[in-house]
């Protein structure tokens, strides 16, 4: 019987392969085709064959039985399947159960994969929103016509500004830092320079968030392969070990959130750090799901990079931009790199690329640990992963 305590699971599995495909605008591709291209590339990156894959994790924002067509399309007969759908955090939340399954011997190679043609599809964000009103009703909020998910994040931003004096300029710092990182990333969708004044002058959508405080709507696929640590050491790429992972959900509706300035990331972060035996000060590079600029501020606080209420000043003067005091969202994030409906897997992939030293002009030098954090719904689900190189084991 294998030891599957959280402490024993620390570093027991490693990400052996990652890939993205079609990030940006890829008309003519379906969700599944984007997923499949990324999946095949991630498996090849891991030095494995598709026939080696005996575990699958995936989720879709529209198909409720998505694991079945994915398994069918990829031609697999998996022994381990996880299609837990927690919104954009899902692909980070998939880590820990897969680690248990690997440790227990249920499977040997888990493929976590996602694809969405949200930008190019005929059935896009508007249509999904209309369908969700029937499939996933929120009868206590919908009558007031919040522009979801945007208005929920705007409400959180309004409260953060009220309680802590956070300013729109500080929110704009987050968008500008993301854009500066994107300028160093050839895969990023929006790379042209953008100033704080550009963000402040952008069209307001749901106060205090302007269109430049909001993530992109792109196409894209992403995938990674998780294997046991002992196997990863025999594969071609530098293993990126999973040191900690935790997921937390406190509510679905923003109106059910107890304190709009404290997210469940405070729980997922605490538990992931505890499993890893590390804390915020140990993190070399940080990827936070930035669906909106306020997310980055909330997660910097809830994950311990600064005190509650102080993230606004933390990001000032390029604090999280290239050359700042903490490298955050080094691919350009959901704000400027890629955001095909759900971004979580891309945050994790960027963390892996940074640790491997594969990040090109945006490479953070000397990082041996990384934090990747996923968010889902309307600040509803939070999943934190702590990753590290062998030196961090």
């Amino acid at each position, binding site marked *: 019987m294998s030891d599957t305590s959280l402490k024993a699971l620390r570093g027991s599995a490693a990400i052996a392969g990652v890939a993205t495909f079609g990030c940006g605008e890829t008309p003519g591709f379906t969700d599944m085709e984007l997923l499949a291209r990324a999946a095949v590339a991630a498996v090849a990156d891991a030095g494995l064959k598709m026939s080696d894959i005996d575990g699958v994790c995936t989720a879709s924002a529209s198909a409720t039985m998505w694991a079945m067509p994915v398994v069918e399309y990829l031609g697999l007969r998996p022994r381990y399947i996880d299609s837990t759908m927690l919104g954009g955090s899902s692909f980070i939340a998939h880590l820990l159960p897969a680690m248990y399954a690997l440790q227990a011997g249920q499977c040997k190679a888990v493929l976590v994969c996602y694809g969405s043609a949200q930008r190019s599809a005929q059935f896009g964000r508007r249509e999904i929103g209309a369908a969700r009103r029937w499939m996933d009703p929120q*009868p*206590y*909020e919908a*009558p*007031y*016509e*919040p*522009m979801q998910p945007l*208005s929920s994040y*705007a*409400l*959180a931003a*309004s*409260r953060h500004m*009220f309680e802590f004096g956070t300013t729109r300029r500080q929110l704009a710092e987050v968008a500008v830092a993301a854009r500066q990182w994107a300028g160093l990333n050839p895969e990023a969708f929006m790379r042209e320079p953008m100033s704080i004044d550009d963000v402040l002058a952008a*069209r*307001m*959508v*749901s*106060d*205090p*968030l302007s269109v430049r405080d909001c993530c992109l709507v792109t196409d894209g696929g992403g995938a990674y392969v998780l294997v046991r640590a002992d196997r990863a050491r025999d594969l071609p790429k530098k293993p990126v070990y999973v040191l900690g992972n935790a997921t937390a959900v406190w509510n679905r*509706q*923003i*109106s*059910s959130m107890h304190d*709009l300035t404290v997210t469940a990331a405070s729980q997922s972060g605490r538990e992931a750090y505890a499993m890893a035996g590390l804390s915020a000060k140990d993190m070399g590079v940080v990827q936070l799901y930035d669906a909106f600029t306020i997310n980055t501020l909330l997660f910097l606080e809830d994950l311990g990079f600064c005190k509650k209420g102080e993230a606004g000043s933390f990001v000032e003067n390029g604090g999280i931009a290239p050359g700042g005091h903490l490298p955050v969202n080094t691919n350009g994030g959901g704000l400027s790199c890629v955001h095909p409906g759900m971004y979580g897997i891309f945050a994790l992939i960027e963390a892996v690329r940074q640790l491997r030293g594969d990040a090109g002009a945006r490479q953070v030098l000397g990082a041996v640990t990384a934090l990747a954090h996923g968010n889902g719904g309307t600040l509803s689900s939070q999943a934190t992963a702590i990753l590290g190189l062998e030196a961090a084991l």
Partner: protein
Amino acid sequence: MAQEPTMAAANGVQAIHQAALDEGRFLIQRCVTCSKHVYFPREHCPHCGSVALDWVAPSGQGTVYAMTTVRRKPDAGGDYNVSLVDLDEGVRLMSRVDGVAPLGVKIGQRVQARVQLSEGRGMVLFAPLQALEKTAP
């Protein structure tokens, strides 16, 4: 309270709540066991797990906890407010504060609930409670 629906009614709490709204009455729940108020309506108390929940009429007075102005083109109806309001009973709900320009709604502002009927369907809206605002500490 005798005329109010109870948990033993034939409908689920969502339908009971909406039926009351459609008659112009705003009801929330109160747990018989732990005394806490509950909103949105549940089949059991999310605080203590009790299934003994009464329907009660709240004072309707509350405080704006968070707010946003959703921008919309004038020909589509113009901008509108979406707020989270904390009722004095200790529960929070999403609503709209009317009777003031959307950008005039402020966090901390005291508001009063009313039920608006539109084509037979009731919904809770709020308006500023100016008099109380002036005397609030």
